[in-house]
C-alpha cells in the first residue's frame, strides 16, 4: 500500500547521483565527514524503499503530528490582496507548531536505523530545535541544539521549550551569532562525534543527500495542498507562495507543483531593512553562487568569498545561504523569488491576526506579505496558496515590542529601544 504522508519524489528527477540540481548542490565536506554523509545517503535510500519505514513514519505523521494539516481559506485577509482567493496551508497546526516536525521525525527514525544514540541540530527561530528536541524525547535520544546567541535572546521561549524537552541548548558566540554560526558549530561537533552522532540538519541546504532527503520529508505539504485545492477550489492555484530562509517549507510546498507549468512558484526572501541598505538576508536576490555549509548555491558574500553577515527581524530567515534546489529553480526560471522587508512582514503578521484570528510566525508573515502583493497583481480571479509554515507564539515578545503591545510603564518606555536592540543584536 502506498504511504499517505511520506511521499518522496516518485520520479527521482533531481538531484543527480552526485547531488546536483543543475549547477548547484554537491558535497563540499571535510574528509572526516565523508563516511558519515555517505552512510546517511545509503541508509536514506534503503529506508525510502522500505515499506516498514514508510508505515512507521506515516503512523507518526498521522497520530503524533496530526496530518493532514488543514487548508484554510482566509477571505477577510484576501480583501487586502486584491480580492484574490487565498488559502493557507496550515503547517502551523502541526505538533510543535511548524512544518519542521515533518523532516525531524523522518531523520529521527533514520538515526535509530543507523544505530546512533545522539542527535545534534542547528536552529534559528528555534522551531527546528524544538521539533528535534521533541523527537529526541519521543525516541530517547540525547540531543544538543546549537543556536546563535542573538537568536537565543529573541526566541527565548523556544530555548525554554527545548530545555523542558530535555535538550541541551548551546548559545553560539562566534561570527554573527545567528543561524549560520550555529551550523558552523554543529559541523564542528559532528566531525568530533560522528561515530555515535547524527546531524539532524533542518533545511534543504547542506551536502548531498540532505537537500533531497529533507525535501522528500516535506514534500507532503505540497501534495496535500494540491489535492485539497482541487477539492475545494476545483482548480490548481495561480501561485504557490512560501517564505525562504534555507528553503525547507518552500520546497515542501513547491515540489508537487513543479510539473504544473501554470502554477507560479514564488519564494519570499527577507529584505530586512531593504536590500539597498545592505541589511538583509535576500540570498537569491542579492547573492552570487558560492559554497557554504557543504553545497554550491547562491550565497551572500563579498568579492573574495567571505560570507557577509545577514540581517532579518526573523531569526528563521536570517541566513546567508539557500538550498541548492532553489538556486536551480531560480536560474531555470521555474521559481520566482522576491524580497519582503521587515516592515511589510510585520504588517502582514498584524493583518492576518486581526482579520482571521491566526497569528503567524514572523517567517511565514514574509510569505503573507508576498501574497498581498501577488494577489493585487492577479486581481479577483486569482487563486493563491500560501504555506503558513509556523505559528507566531514564539514571536510575541518581538511583536509586542515592535507594535507596542506591553502596557506596563517600564515596558512601554522600553518599547522603542527594545526593537532597536533586537535589530542591533541581529546585525
Amino acid at each position, binding site marked *: 500500500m502506498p504511504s499517505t504522508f511520506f511521499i518522496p519524489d516518485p520520479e527521482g528527477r533531481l538531484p543527480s547521483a*552526485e547531488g546536483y540540481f543543475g549547477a548547484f548542490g*554537491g*558535497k*563540499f*565536506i*571535510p*574528509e*572526516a*565527514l*565523508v*563516511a*558519515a554523509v555517505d552512510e546517511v545517503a545509503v541508509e536514506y535510500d534503503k529506508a525510502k524503499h522500505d515499506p516498514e519505514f514508510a508505515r512507521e513514519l506515516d503512523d507518526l505523521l498521522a497520530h503524533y503530528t496530526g496530518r493532514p494539516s488543514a487548508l484554510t481559506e482566509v477571505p477577510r485577509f484576501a480583501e487586502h490582496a486584491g480580492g484574490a482567493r487565498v488559502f493557507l496551508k496550515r503547517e502551523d497546526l502541526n505538533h510543535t507548531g511548524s512544518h519542521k516536525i515533518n523532516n525531524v521525525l523522518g531523520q529521527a527514525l533514520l538515526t535509530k536505523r543507523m544505530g546512533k544514540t545522539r542527535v545534534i541540530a542547528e536552529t534559528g527561530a528555534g522551531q527546528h530545535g524544538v521539533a528535534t528536541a521533541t523527537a529526541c524525547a519521543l525516541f530517547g535520544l540525547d540531543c544538543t541544539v546549537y543556536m546563535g546567541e542573538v537568536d537565543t535572546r529573541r526566541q527565548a521561549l523556544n530555548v525554554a521549550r527545548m530545555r523542558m524537552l530535555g535538550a541541551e541548548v548551546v548559545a553560539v558566540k*562566534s*561570527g554573527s551569532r545567528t543561524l*549560520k554560526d550555529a551550523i*558552523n558549530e554543529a*559541523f*564542528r561537533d559532528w*566531525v*568530533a*562525534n*560522528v*561515530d555515535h552522532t547524527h546531524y539532524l540538519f533542518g533545511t534543504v541546504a547542506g551536502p548531498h543527500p540532505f537537500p533531497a532527503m529533507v525535501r522528500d520529508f516535506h514534500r507532503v505539504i505540497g501534495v496535500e495542498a494540491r489535492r485539497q485545492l482541487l477539492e475545494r477550489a476545483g482548480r490548481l492555484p495561480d501561485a504557490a507562495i512560501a517564505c525562504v530562509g534555507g528553503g525547507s517549507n518552500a520546497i515542501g510546498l513547491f515540489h508537487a507543483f513543479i510539473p504544473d507549468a501554470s502554477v507560479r512558484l514564488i519564494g519570499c526572501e527577507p529584505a530586512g531593512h531593504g536590500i539597498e541598505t545592505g541589511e538583509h538576508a535576500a540570498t537569491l536576490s542579492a547573492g*552570487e553562487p*558560492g*559554497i*557554504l*555549509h*557543504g553545497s554550491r548555491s547562491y*550565497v551572500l*558574500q563579498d*568579492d*573574495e*568569498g*567571505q*560570507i*557577509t553577515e545577514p540581517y532579518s527581524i526573523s531569526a528563521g530567515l536570517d541566513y546567508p545561504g539557500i538550498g541548492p534546489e532553489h538556486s536551480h529553480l531560480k536560474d531555470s526560471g521555474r521559481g520566482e523569488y522576491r524580497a519582503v522587508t521587515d516592515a511589510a512582514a510585520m504588517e502582514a503578521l498584524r493583518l492576518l491576526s486581526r482579520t482571521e484570528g491566526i497569528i503567524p510566525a514572523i517567517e511565514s508573515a514574509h510569505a503573507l506579505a508576498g501574497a498581498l502583493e501577488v494577489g493585487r497583481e492577479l486581481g479577483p480571479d486569482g487563486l493563491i496558496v500560501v504555506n503558513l509554515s509556523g505559528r507566531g507564539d514564539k514571536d510575541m515578545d518581538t511583536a509586542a515590542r515592535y507594535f507596542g503591545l506591553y502596557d506596563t510603564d517600564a515596558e512601554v518606555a522600553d518599547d522603542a529601544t527594545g526593537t532597536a536592540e533586537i535589530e542591533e543584536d541581529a546585525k
Partner: protein
Amino acid sequence: MSGNLRLLDDTLAAAKSEGRAALIAYLPAGFPTVDGGIEAVKAAIDGGADIVEVGLPHSDPVLDGPVIQTADDIALRGGVRIADVLRTVREAYKATGRPILVMTYWNPVDRYGVERFTAELAEAGGAGCILPDLPVQESGLWQEHAEKHGLATVFVVAPSSKDERLARITAAGTGFVYAASLMGVTGTRETVSSQAEDLVRRTRATTSTPVCVGLGVSTPAQAAEVARFADGVIVGSAFVKRMLDAPDHAAGIEGVRALAGDLARGVRAHA
C-alpha cells in the same frame, strides 16, 4: 612562472634522508597584522620549521577550533585580502627559500577564480595548497590548474576514511598527504590520538607520497612521538596560541621562534 612543488618534494626527501620527520608550521596570514604575520612565518622557519602553511582566513572556518577562529577573526577584522596572503607567501619564500603552502577553504578560491588564484600563488613562489573542504570528487578543476602551475594539491585523510577511498585520494594528491590524527577540529590536545599511527600505516599502503600528521599536535614530545611513524609533523594552533598569549608582538614572535626550535628538536629525537 611555475610553482614550487619540486622544492616541496625535495625538502621532504631531504628530511627523510636525515632519518627524521619534517616540521611543518601553520600560521594565518594577516594575524595579528599582515607584516606581523610575515614576521611570524619567518620566525617559524628561522626557529627550525622546514615548511610553512599560510592560512588564508575565512569567515566560516568550520574545521577550526577556537584558537584559529580567533586569529582568523582578528585578521579579517584587520581587513586582510587575498593579495595580502599572496604577499605573505612571496616575502616568506624570498627571505627563506623554503616551501610555502596556502591552507584555506574552497569558497575564497572558487570566488577569486581558480586560474587566477593558482597563477598568482605560483608567481608568488608558493608550493601548493591544502583545501580541507574540497573533497577529491569535487577537485577536478582545482587539480587541473594546480598541475598547470606546478603547485601541490595536498588532500586531507581522516581516521574514518575507508581504504578504497584512501587509494582514490592519494592517487589524486601531490606533495604530501595530510593525515588528520583524530576526528575533530584544529586545536591543541593533551595526547596524540592512537588513530594516527594506524591511519599513516593504511595511507602508506596506497602511496609513496610522504604522509604528514596534523591536528592536535602541539608539544615537542608529541612531535617526537609522531615523528616515529610519519614523514612530517604539522603544528598550527600551538603557534597561534603563542602569539595570542604573548604580552606583546615581539614576545609573540620570539615565542613562535622558540616553539619551532623545540619542535625541530622533537622531530629529530629519534634521528
